[in-house]
């Protein structure tokens, strides 16, 4: 059987013989690669339902594996291991171990929605990627990824005051990543800030300075905040229940 996506087979399961003749046919070398036969017994039969229970994963069952999502994917073009079509396949089969191999790149979806437009079955692969990244964290397969830290910091500001302030978003992200002083160490961030500061755009600098002191906020936001927080707690509890996890724990 030809192997279309050789990178998807674990290296230890690939068999390439230097010298092998079967029934008088020479099958040695690269063009006669075999896959080690194996029996998969560790299916997580609930996996598709678990992903489907999380926001964004609802339509995963519609996928018919055409591969349009991967073909259209922005991140796939940068990193060929980033393969939404394949991950949807694994989830639908329940091959948890195989999926977890890619736990450190699934979060890298940039939400460009090229897959969503390409998909003929309205799976919304972008949302499925977000649900899968969320599932990996909830299940404890990975620690919070940088994008989760960013999303949580950003959303916490919105929920608290109704608005965000760019400077605080940046500072809060690096603080959550454990290095609050990184903006001052990254040469490109320093070059970016000093570049604009040199041109002294007084109005802009005053505005940014003022935002440091007086955080922008939506007036009378407290009841909205309360409603949103309550809703998040409910969704969290529902998600954890769907995944068979104990009730406590954060989002």
């Amino acid at each position, binding site marked *: 059987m030809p192997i279309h996506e050789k990178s998807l087979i674990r290296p230890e399961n690939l068999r390439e013989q230097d010298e092998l003749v079967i029934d008088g046919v020479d099958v040695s070398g690269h063009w006669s690669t075999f896959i080690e036969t194996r029996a998969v017994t560790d299916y997580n039969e609930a996996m598709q339902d678990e992903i489907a229970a999380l*926001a*964004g994963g609802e339509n995963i069952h519609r996928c018919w594996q055409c591969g349009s999502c991967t073909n259209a994917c*922005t991140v796939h073009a*940068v990193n060929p291991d980033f393969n939404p079509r394949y991950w949807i396949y694994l989830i639908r089969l329940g091959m948890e171990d195989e999926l977890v191999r890619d736990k450190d790149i699934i979060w*890298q979806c*940039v*939400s*460009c*929605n*090229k897959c*969503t*437009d390409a998909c003929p079955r309205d799976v*919304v692969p972008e*949302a499925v990627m*977000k649900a899968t990244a*969320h599932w990996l964290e909830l299940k404890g397969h990975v620690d919070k*990824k*940088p*994008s*989760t*830290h*960013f*999303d*949580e910091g*950003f*959303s916490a500001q*919105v929920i608290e005051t109704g*608005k*965000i*302030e*760019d*400077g605080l978003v*940046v500072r809060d*992200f690096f603080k959550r990543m454990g290095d609050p002083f990184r903006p001052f160490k990254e040469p*490109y*961030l320093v*070059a*970016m800030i000093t*570049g604009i500061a040199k*041109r002294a*755009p007084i*109005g*802009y600098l005053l*505005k*940014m300075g003022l*935002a440091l002191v007086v955080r*922008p906020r*939506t*007036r*009378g*936001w407290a*009841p*909205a905040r*309360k*409603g*949103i927080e309550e*809703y*998040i707690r409910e*969704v969290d509890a529902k998600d954890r229940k769907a995944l068979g996890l104990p009730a406590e724990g954060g*989002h």
Partner: protein
Amino acid sequence: MEKDLKKVAYYPGCALEGTGYAYNKSTKAVAKELGLDLVEVENWNCCGAMEVKNIDPEIETYLSARVLSQTEKMGFDKVMAPCNGCYHNLKKAEHDLTHDAHSVEVNDRLSKKAGHKTYEAGKVETLHALDWLMRAVGEEEISRRVRKSLSGIKVANYYGCMYTRPRRIFPEKDKGPGTESTANPHFMDDLLAAAGAENVAFPLKTACCGGAHTLSDSDTSTKLCLNILTAAEASGADVIATECPTCHTGLEMHQIRAEKVMGRKTKVKIMHFTQLLGLALGLSSRKVGVNDNFSDSRGFVKERGLG
């Protein structure tokens, strides 16, 4: 031209109050110069951007619906959002509140808790600055009002992701001549061409800049931005015109980062389309905030006799 678009509600959003300062400034300046009236949405809130949906998409729908509710409360049935993220989210909220019962239910619940009228689909139309200028002013009127033509300036028009994708949330697009195309958007091209610019054939009009992970996965974002910057240069562009604050700041930041981290220097300028349009209408460089960009286009603007 549509007279009822001369005065619309204006939703700048958080980015235009921060890193998109120059986009806000130049949008307002262009509107004023063209005799259009922008009335800021009262006591607005964040639309949810690209982040809140990852906590829960229904909260993002609610946040955007609240902005639409505020707009409706002011008696407007049109809101203009120059930021791609805001525009996209208001459109998405409109779509979800039209088609998804769960979204309607959560929006109603959260709106009641927050103590304001629940927004119902169909009450407010969301426009991007591009739609708005095309419909409220149009190419002919822009051409008539040009004082300093952009002739000889080669522009790569960059639209990014959220202005056209996913297609389903933009039912008014792809409706044939005169409407915007999601596969090959052209409103920015049209407006700048009307101002005299020479648009280059730019293949990455709707490529992604990696804006969602600009800080959390900078290496990917730098690669994506570098693709856009080098493609623009290869297309012969002097300047990339942007219509999204996230794309704009992303390109500016990763242009510097590509040079500092990967040793890849690109020289193409990055400006908001409203800055180019404003300069063409005779506004000063300062009025359209050329000074307020992170990247330095002052020399370019002066050299080409624009400001």
